[in-house]
């Protein structure tokens, strides 16, 4: 599904990713952990194609296709989804309208007609119920005045609506209380299948109790310094990141 080779990226003359190698296959869930500022969000942005970040070396390959020249919306059409760490506000645009536009734009890219209204209605109903989202919430301006938790839940709602092949969840757990975390994780798990893959970026292993990863990678200073199974998350929790930092120095 996703193959990242020797990826280097910089922003404003500053090298942030310094040689990332990662392979994610369909059906797998990978967790990326690491201290603040290690480059987790940058990696997510580079996969999603944010132009602000300059790829200086290496490649991101999705299903055999080098994404170098693909615009962010083209990557989205190919099934890449990013649940943002800090979702932006778009005043005056309702969640419903935003989703309708997103779905129809992706369909257009695939040569399909707009989704019929009743079909969309059904989809919205189904996904909002799954994530226990109040109907009224969908009429509100996108992320405007949403609490941290509402924003994250809304990101996962969008993921559920768009059914991506590769979903990257960037600190989706931050801002969620335990009940919301359970609901959101449950939603994510329902979307797991042998045909898609998920990358979960998180600080804490708490989320990983609910979304159990197949692999855990530790990112430090722009590099993956350690990889392992789900036990690695627990080990990290116990020993703290200093353990990794020290090990990385050695």
């Amino acid at each position, binding site marked *: 599904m996703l193959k990242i080779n020797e990826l280097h990226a910089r922003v404003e003359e500053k090298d942030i990713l310094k040689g990332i190698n990662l392979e994610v296959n369909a059906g797998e869930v990978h967790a990326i952990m690491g201290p603040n500022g290690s480059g987790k969000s940058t990696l997510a942005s580079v996969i*999603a*194609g*944010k*132009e*602000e970040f300059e790829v200086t070396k290496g490649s991101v390959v999705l299903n055999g296709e080098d994404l170098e020249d693909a*615009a*962010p*919306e083209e*990557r*989205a*059409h190919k099934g*890449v*989804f*990013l649940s*943002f760490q800090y*979702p*932006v*506000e*778009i*005043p*005056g*645009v*309702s969640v*419903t*309208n*935003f989703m*309708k*536009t*997103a*779905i129809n*734009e*992706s369909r257009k*890219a695939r040569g399909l007609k707009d989704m019929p*209204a*009743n079909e*969309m*209605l059904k989809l*919205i109903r189904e996904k909002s119920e799954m994530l226990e989202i109040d*109907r*009224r919430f*969908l*009429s509100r*301006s*996108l992320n405007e005045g949403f609490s941290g938790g509402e924003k994250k839940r809304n990101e996962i709602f*969008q993921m559920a609506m*768009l059914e991506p092949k590769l979903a990257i969840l960037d600190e989706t757990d931050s801002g969620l209380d335990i009940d919301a975390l359970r609901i959101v994780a449950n939603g994510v798990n329902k979307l797991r299948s042998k045909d898609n893959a998920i990358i979960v970026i998180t600080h804490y292993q708490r989320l990983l109790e609910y979304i159990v990863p197949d692999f855990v990678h530790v990112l430090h200073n722009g590099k993956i310094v350690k990889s392992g199974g789900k036990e690695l998350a627990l080990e990290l929790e116990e020993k703290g990141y200093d353990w990794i930092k020290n090990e990385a120095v050695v």
Partner: protein
Amino acid sequence: MAYTEEELKKELETKEYEYGFYTDIESDTFPVGLNEDIVVAISKKKSEPKWMTDWRLEAFRHWQAMEEPEWANVTYAKPDFQAISYYSAPNSKPKYESLDEVDPELLDTFKKLGISLDEQKKLAGVAVDIVMDSVSVATTFKKTLAEKGIIFCSISEAIKEHPELVKKYIGSVVPQKDNFYAALNSAVFSDGSFCYIPKGVRCPMELSTYFRINQAGTGQFERTLVIADEGSYVSYLEGCTAPSRDENQLHAAVVELIALDDAEIKYSTVQNWFPGDKEGKGGVFNFVTKRGICEKNAKISWTQVETGSAVTWKYPSCILKGDNAIGEFYSIAVTNNYQQADTGTKMVHLGKNTRSTIISKGISAGKSQNSYRGLVQVNSRAENARNFSQCDSLLMGNACGAHTFPYIEVKNKTAQIEHEATTSKIGEDQIFYCNQRGIDTEKAIALIVNGFSKEVLNKLPMEFAVEAQKLLEISLEGSVG
């Protein structure tokens, strides 16, 4: 507010709108130039009574002594008024008994506008009086309206059929010599719409007029007069689009609204005249005088979506004469490339407890200049007058300009005036967020702009709002990168 299944459905069903057309129709056009003979000839052509001819001549004499105004924040090559033809009418003069008799090209144009008469009849709820190059070509729904005593016709027809009403009200809100363009319009107006709602009648449908300029080199001088008698209500829609043109076209319309005691008029406009090309060549000059007068407890709402024209100069205003009168102005003005817009409103508070609301949304892109100019005036007798003004500007790129010129003149201490203004820019993060969801940058901007404009779009009747949204999108095409 609840968000019902119905509302959700409605939001999902909102359709896209077809736009853009150009038609060649043979026209009967006057030679270029303007003098008293031309004024008289226009009046004759329309078989007007003598009082109307005299009224036009009086306006013409005023106009000759006037200077073109220069205070607006716009620069343009002044039109040569002697190089314009002041009358142009579609050739097919006879009124049609059936649609079969109508010029097929004209019918085609109607279809492109999405208002084929056939369809309109079925759709119910919207009567259309189409002003095609100055002469009303078709009027529908007249019967239904007539049953309620509502008059909705071309102003030419009204001059003939209802002279007492026209004579009483024409020029009563915008006098002949009000300003340079109003005087010009008063002298040479070719046609326009007339509407009268009798006492206590609620007009059962939205009255709608589609204007367009079709003949190269003919200025369009529309005259609209809407009279809402005591306790009546009407919602009036005015919309227009124009095909691409290489030369400047002058448009100087006058709209007068009269809301008598307890009456309400909602006047909505979607304006999309040719804005000129990317280099700023061509485009319509739109110099419009729109004003309404509110008697006791009356209300006038102006809602406008302005996306077109090379140069716009337009201030729909309310004179709140009667006690408790209400004036509202909701506006979206978009400028792109080299467009210039100087638009806003005047709220003149004369009566006690009069209230006004101004919501202005300016969107500038390219190298355009977008100015809001608003006057709130509270006279000494206007006890407890209230105004709320909000002017928001959205900028795209660094080469455009947004300007706000609020004027406040208060002569009564009890007045409460509030003014809020914001300026924002479309953020790269917002665009990336949309991109990430599969929405390309062009569409993302349209979405963000629609969101920004929502408070005003919501004031428009549904079918008009759809059209307006589409126009916002079209007018900002190519504004990124």
